[in-house]
């Protein structure tokens, strides 16, 4: 098992190198020149040229890449063209916000998704099933940004129940320890900050969770339906155990195994969805920031972020596989990967 994990981690390296090349190509070869925006209203062509030279943008592309990758290996992703701060710092100032949002969203999505899915499967073709699946269908069909705006209009603009933007009331902002406000506020024992963070999370997390929840609900339903058809479920029933136990202990455990993969994949797509949610809710996360940086051609930041997200994504896949193995004893790591 350990060997398998190490092997998988080693396999990540080429993937990450590939990702960095892809991003590098898109950004440096095809994207607009960052110089005019960096230099602003008064920039002259001479200043632009000088700036490009200073930032190595006139070097041949492979040299630029080597420079970038050697920097990356030593943990130096360069400085943002725009704020001139180290990219690492820029990223880690925003990353916790995205992760906090995404984790809460995936939690909501999994919880409700699995619940709806299981009920729908067990009560197949009942009103619960139909209602649940209709909800799921709407969930996958609604643009996430539209949903977000509708939520803001309704819960913030009309009812004034929930805040429309930001992570927390700035007055309650906890000490910056981990960057995760939920954790930081707990560490400092600040219950008000914790509550306020949660309140701020509700709308964006719900908007973000909707799509994943729908996917998870649908997958859970079909997985459960399939599991309920399995021979071992019949065996369990033949043992005379109660139906609740059959579903809870035998069907759910098996039915959830494929769901783990789905949840893992959803986390990846949540990071993507965060781009839109963060834009709508002015969430100080990495998604909206990256979009802004792409549009500003802030190469170092975009390269850094994408590399980071890709790392998180592939690690996530690895974790999913490990959980998978934990849930499903049949998976053996001695088998060569196909």
């Amino acid at each position, binding site marked *: 098992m350990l060997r398998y994990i190490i092997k998988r981690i080693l396999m990540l390296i080429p993937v990450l190198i590939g990702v960095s090349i892809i991003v590098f190509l898109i950004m440096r070869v095809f994207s*607009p020149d960052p110089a005019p925006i*960096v230099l602003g209203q*008064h920039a002259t062509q001479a200043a632009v040229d000088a*700036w490009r030279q200073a930032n190595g943008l006139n070097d041949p592309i492979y040299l630029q890449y080597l420079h970038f990758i050697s920097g990356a290996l030593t943990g130096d992703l360069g400085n943002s063209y725009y704020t001139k701060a180290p990219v690492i710092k820029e990223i880690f100032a925003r990353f916790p916000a995205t992760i906090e949002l995404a984790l809460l969203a995936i939690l909501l999505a999994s919880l409700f998704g699995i619940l709806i899915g299981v009920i729908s499967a067990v009560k197949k073709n009942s009103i619960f099933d139909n209602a649940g699946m209709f909800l799921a269908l709407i969930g996958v069909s609604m643009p996430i940004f539209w949903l977000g*705006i509708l939520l803001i209009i309704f819960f913030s*603009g009309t009812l004034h129940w929930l805040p429309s*933007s930001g992570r927390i009331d700035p007055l309650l902002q906890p000490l910056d320890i981990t960057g995760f406000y939920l954790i930081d506020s707990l560490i400092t024992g600040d219950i008000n900050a914790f509550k306020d963070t949660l309140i701020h999370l509700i709308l964006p997390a719900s908007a973000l969770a909707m799509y994943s929840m729908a996917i998870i609900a649908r997958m859970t339903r079909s997985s459960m339906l399939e599991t309920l058809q399995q021979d071992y479920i019949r065996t369990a029933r033949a043992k005379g155990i109660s139906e609740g136990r059959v579903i809870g202990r035998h069907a759910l455990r098996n039915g959830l195994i494929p769901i783990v993969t789905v949840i893992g994949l959803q986390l990846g797509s949540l990071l993507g969805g965060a781009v839109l949610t963060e834009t709508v809710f*002015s969430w100080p996360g990495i998604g*909206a920031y990256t979009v802004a940086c792409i549009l500003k051609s802030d190469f170092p930041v975009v390269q850094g972020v994408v590399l980071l997200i890709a790392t998180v994504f592939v690690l996530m896949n690895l974790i999913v596989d490990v959980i998978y193995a934990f849930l499903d004893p049949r998976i053996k790591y001695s088998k060569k990967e196909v």
Partner: protein
Amino acid sequence: GCGSKTDGGKEAPKANDTLIYAQGAEPRGLDPALVDDGESAKVMINIYEGLLKYNKDSTKVEASLAKTWEVSTDGLTYTFHLQEGVKFHDGTDFDAEAVKFNIDRQIPPQVTADMAYGSFVYGSVKNVEVVDKNTVKVNLTEPSTPFLSNLAMVMSAPMVSPKALKENNNNVNQAPVGTGPYKFVKWAKDENIVLVANDEYWGTKALTKNVIFKFIKDNSARVVALNNGEADMIDGIDATVVKQITDAGNKIFQAPGMNVNYMAYNTSKAPFNNAKLRAAVSQAINVPEMVKSLYQGYSEPATSILPTFVEGYDKSIAQVAYNPEAAAKAIKEAGLTSVKIMTYTNPRPYNSATGQALAESIQGYLSKVGITATIDSYDWTTYKEKLKAGNYDICFYGWIGDNGDPDNFMYLLAHEDPTMNVALYKNEEFNKLIAKGIATPAGPDRNAIYTELEKIAAADAAWLPISHAETLCAYRPDVKDFYFHMTGVTPFVGVSKQ
């Protein structure tokens, strides 16, 4: 973010100790030499001071860190007498050495390409001499009338602690240290910047202890935040939400803005190398109607390039008047049937409706006089890049005044750089007048030069000035003495909350 709250302990600050200002974007940084954006300026005005500052209601210069100053008769030497006993937030002294240090870093040989305003503000400076601890002499290479105005700007001109600059690699974007009424506390990226009142401030101390700048990108969300009490003041609103805000019991702050929103013809090539045709097309556009509809009364239709309150403005200046019939006729005669419009997708301070909306409305007007317009629109960065190629007939642009000097607007039409002079306008006579204007000392003579320049511009119709955007902000009723300076900044030193 960095660092923790310096004082106040764990106790959350009381609400009326704190002003929360929500703006649409995050500052680019807080080093006045390195940034050029309005969002940064709003924060910096509270942290830093320059040698001079603008009057509250105009762009007249007043004493700030310089108590008094003298200008030599040849206009080449400026001597400043500094305030005594002023300290930077890091405890170091503000003195003549500090002034020299700040200017030196922005003039050759130290100046770098990314110091956006360095050459604009200090471009004419030859060197700086420290006379004594509180006296400093600045020598220019040629006379420059706007120089004093420039020294009151929030970009480039403010005084930064030399110690902080040395410690931070000549870049205090993330760790600003000035002499101003507020001290920097922390910056949570994409969330907020927290400032606290400077208890050792040499001047009148700030009334409110904490100021928080919050970043809410979405316009509607910012309005919701104000109405929900999540913010005390917001900016960057447009006309459509005013009712929403006032209905919720909040107030609107409205002031003329020092900017111009214009449409430019590509004068370098056919068809618009023909001034008559330019005028004819401008005739086809009902500027007042369009401005009213797009900005709902929160932008003035422009009659000239200069905003009304800038020296050199003259009531007599007028652009071609709306006359679709005449336009149609002229256009038909010239055989013009299609034009290529290029525009930007973002809202800009001078055009809250986005360049795209503007272009599309003009597309509407043009179609009425038989011109089919195609629109290519790009985000601002790409747009500026694309402008260079000059592959357009019509484009859109705007300008925010930096220092209230008329040259700051008019020189654009004389600029060499195609991304500045987007009309690619070339007129020797015009250029000569511009040079003359810079060297002429302030006064009626100088103003006459700019009025003349305006007249040339209107006659040549290289630009169609569209509007001057008003500054539109909103604040909660318990906020007192809030104001927004015409240069686009919000000093909070005198603002309080009940």
